[in-house]
């Protein structure tokens, strides 16, 4: 396996808060890497830096061997790095179908003013993506009328419609009803595995992490405290005490 995304010595501070204090991380092609850690540890900041939204004060980031430091979000997404958001970022006055079709159009080139957005090819592809997420019945609904779980999925569907090579997801299951959670992640994991997408996801549900992550990175105060396969990391006594917040022997799902 080759390294797809590589971060070296990333540092950034907001006022006195060190959100990244020397982050070194390699994301391998094809893996699912979970990022866990308490609130304020810098997990989202890492995603923001990797997608060009924030510029680290020091350090290097390369993607597929290319230096992406200083690139804009637009340039980075064009290289194949898409992201989804903790708070869904949908075009609220558009339908779910239009939202997804716009992502398809964004990939295919948006500058064709003489054919409608919902031309047959874009519509078909958008419907395909929505179908894989089980959102097809909601395709005609305006995005601001959806419930939190569906908004979350639509947000991820838009990122997937960009056909990224690397997908960064910020808490994909927050807001999804706990009864649906496993189903949602199951679907998501299948879609991503099928298309060979490498995924990095910030997650608070340890059951989801244990089941779907190939590796887990534990964030704490802007540093990576532990990194490895879930069975090893999630059973590390320090991680259990400091991050998951439970003593040895207790059930891991209590941490969510």
């Amino acid at each position: 396996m080759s390294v797809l995304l590589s971060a070296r010595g990333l540092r950034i501070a907001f006022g006195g808060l060190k959100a990244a204090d020397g982050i070194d991380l390699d994301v391998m092609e094809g893996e699912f890497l979970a990022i866990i850690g308490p609130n304020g540890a810098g997990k989202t900041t890492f995603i923001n830096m990797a997608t060009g939204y924030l510029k680290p004060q020091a350090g290097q980031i390369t993607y597929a061997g290319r230096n992406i430091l200083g690139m804009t979000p637009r340039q980075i997404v064009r290289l194949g790095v898409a992201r989804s958001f903790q708070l869904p970022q949908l075009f609220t006055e558009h339908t779910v179908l239009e939202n997804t079709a716009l992502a398809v159009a964004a990939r295919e080139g948006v500058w064709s003013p003489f054919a409608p957005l919902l031309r047959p090819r874009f519509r078909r592809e958008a419907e395909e993506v929505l179908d894989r997420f089980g959102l097809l019945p909601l395709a005609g609904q305006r995005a601001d009328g959806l419930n939190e779980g569906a908004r979350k999925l639509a947000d991820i569907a838009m990122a997937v419609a960009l056909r990224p090579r690397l997908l960064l997801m910020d808490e994909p299951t927050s807001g999804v009803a706990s009864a649906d959670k496993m189903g949602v992640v199951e679907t998501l994991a299948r879609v991503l595995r099928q298309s060979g997408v490498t995924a990095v996801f910030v997650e608070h549900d340890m059951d989801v992490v244990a089941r779907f992550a190939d590796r887990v990175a534990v964030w704490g105060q802007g540093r990576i405290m532990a990194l490895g396969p879930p069975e090893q990391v999630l059973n590390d006594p320090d991680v259990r005490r400091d991050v998951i917040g439970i003593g040895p022997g207790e059930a891991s799902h209590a941490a969510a």
Partner: protein
Amino acid sequence: MRRAGEVLLVLLAAALVLVVAWTVPWLRFVLTIALAKGLAVLGILLLLRAGQVSFGHALYLAFAAYAIAFGAARVPETLLLLPLAAIGAALLGLLVGLFVVRYREIFFGMLNLALSMVFYSLLEKFYSITHGTDGIRLPPTTFAGQVLDPETQGWAMLCLALLLSILFAVLVRIYLASPIGQALAGIKTREARLEFMGISGRRVLLSAYVLSTLMAGCGGAVLAMTTRHVTPALSYWTASGELVFIAILGGSGSVAGPFLGAVAYELTRVYAAALVADAWQMVLGAVLLLVILFAPGGLWGMGRALVGRRRQA
């Protein structure tokens, strides 16, 4: 079926304009002016879709009008002057647009206003070139080399305004349905997401801005050739405010809104001025207040609601 209905509606509206102009001759001038302003308002509608309001679009209208005034003194040919003036306005729009599309909302609106007032001052102060507030009188323009009598000239201008209105209304509709047009509406709700999808919000807004200035240019050209007198007042901020006023009056839900609004505005103005000479602005203000309070979709939205209710009944 729906498309056929729309084509029919457009033809009916065009026929109505011609019939009114024929039965009430002095309204021909009023309708031509209304359509010319409608063209500029269509540009305002485009920017409204992105959630942006320009309080300075009269700049492009005035620019094209003065371009016609200077051009007509040399080559008084309508079919040459009009495209040149419109393209000139669009080029100016591109230049200004590159700068103003970096800003949003109040900053976007005020920058446009400031630039239009700069242009106003230039027109007013350079008396030796522009004749200041006296303005410039235009000779009658020819149509494809033909010198027309005033009556025919009036009809020619109305037909030209009508054709341009239909052409640009169709064009804007196609544009709005396209990916760029939809991305334009995305600027209003979630511009940051556009960037994370690889779409430049600024470039999308710039395309709409240039198109809007092209239309304002066409409107200004028709206006100049119809009134045959241009003054700096064309670029004054109240002229820009008038365009926004008409956009809200007509409603931004359809490309028909600007023209509906412009015709209603000009007719209200003419009749209100005749009825209550000193208080016509108050009548207009009251009309706008009523529209905002009771018909936020403008005249177009009001008409649609009425048709919808009848269909249900």
